[in-house]
């Protein structure tokens, strides 16, 4: 008998869903890579970029809900990281530091975009309106993706950081600039909303 999707069971928050960023004990940790990069080794930056950019891109994609903006923000964030590498405190966790810089870049861009609300796409045309998340998809992953997109931003962000990106609650609280209790509450409330949506999806499927 197939097991039910784990989304219907609220998981314990203190244990990140995703393991540490290093998969092999012989690989340097992200913090060691950052140390090499700060010491001037460009190849360390490239490894760091390959390891962290999917997580940053995924997070920014969920924040912006637009691929082109998320790509720009990844570039802006890493450029900021490059400029600020001297102020990185050696040994401190890199991923929360990077995500916090990315999040701030998003809000800075968002504020600027309010001043000039009509963004043109690369070919000079007006962007297509976003597709609203209506009915759930046929696949549970797709349904989860859509359900996450339809959540209020604070809930979606908290779930993204703790469950998808794999940060601990205190790291997520740091990135979001809030307390651990607030993160737990947002994840809990987000889960309640997700559960309602996914149960509807499950009913539709059967």
């Amino acid at each position, binding site marked *: *008998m*197939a*097991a*039910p*999707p*784990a*989304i219907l*069971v609220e998981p314990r928050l203190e244990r990140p*869903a*995703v393991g540490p960023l290093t998969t092999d004990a012989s690989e340097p940790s992200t913090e060691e890579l950052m140390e090499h990069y*700060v*010491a*001037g080794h*460009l190849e360390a*930056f*490239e490894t760091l*970029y*390959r390891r962290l*950019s*999917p997580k940053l*891109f*995924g997070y920014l994609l969920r924040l912006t809900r637009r691929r082109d903006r*998320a*790509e720009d923000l*990844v*570039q802006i964030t890493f*450029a*900021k*990281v*490059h*400029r*600020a*590498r*001297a*102020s*990185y*405190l*050696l*040994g*401190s966790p890199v991923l*929360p530091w990077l995500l916090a*810089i990315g999040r*701030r870049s998003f809000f800075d861009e968002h504020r600027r975009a309010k001043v000039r609300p009509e963004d043109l796409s690369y070919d000079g045309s007006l962007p297509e309106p976003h597709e609203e998340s209506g009915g759930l998809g046929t696949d*549970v*992953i797709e349904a*989860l*993706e859509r359900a996450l997109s339809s959540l209020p931003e604070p809930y979606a962000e908290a*779930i993204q950081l703790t469950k*998808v*990106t*794999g940060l601990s609650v*205190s790291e997520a*609280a*740091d*990135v979001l*600039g*809030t*307390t*651990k*209790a607030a993160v737990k509450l947002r994840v809990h409330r987000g889960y309640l909303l997700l559960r309602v949506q996914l149960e509807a999806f499950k009913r539709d499927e059967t």
Partner: protein
Amino acid sequence: MTTRDPFQALARAEEPPPLRVLEALRADMRSTRPAPGPSRNRRLGASALWLFACLLLGSFSAFSSQALWLIGGGSAFALVFGAALLAGVVPGSKRRVGLGLRRGLLGALALGLFGLLALSASEFAPWATVFDAAGCRQALGCGMHALLTGVLGVAGLLWIWRGTDPFTPGATGAVFGSIAGLLGAFSVGLSCSSHEGWHLVVAHGSSVVWLGAACGWAGLKWLRP
């Protein structure tokens, strides 16, 4: 029975950004020279030394009137207290206290100082007599003394920790300001002979509130990378 975690599947499905982003970054990164900044411990050490120097400078006028052991002992205590506080609030450590505790700390520092000043007061004279023309001049002098010592202290802290806190720079800056305000209150307490309660609270203690509030804003500007 196996359980499926769709979140893990979402994490696995995360894709890297297109190659053009990395290429653009490579083109932008003209300088890759080594840029190792001071470590957290070095910055902590520098902060402690700076606070100590500010304390000595702020207490300079008390050297002739107060016993040296009082100045030295008080400065050492203030230094250890300030350094311990800093170690808990600056980023880069897993033992850093959470935002809720840091916010609580801000209130505790201000209330603790006001409580201590009120307890050490010999009397609370009527407001009008405390802040008459002469009283106002004295309060202004003490207030400026506390504020300038605090501003000097917090300027150094903000410079030492500049660009290191992308998470909650406002809260960190506010704690820096409060610590520097305490420093100012301590240094003026050594050189002022008044034991009147309102004078102590308003002239000596209020710098904690002003500096805490101002440095909450300054932290956003200086501490963010």
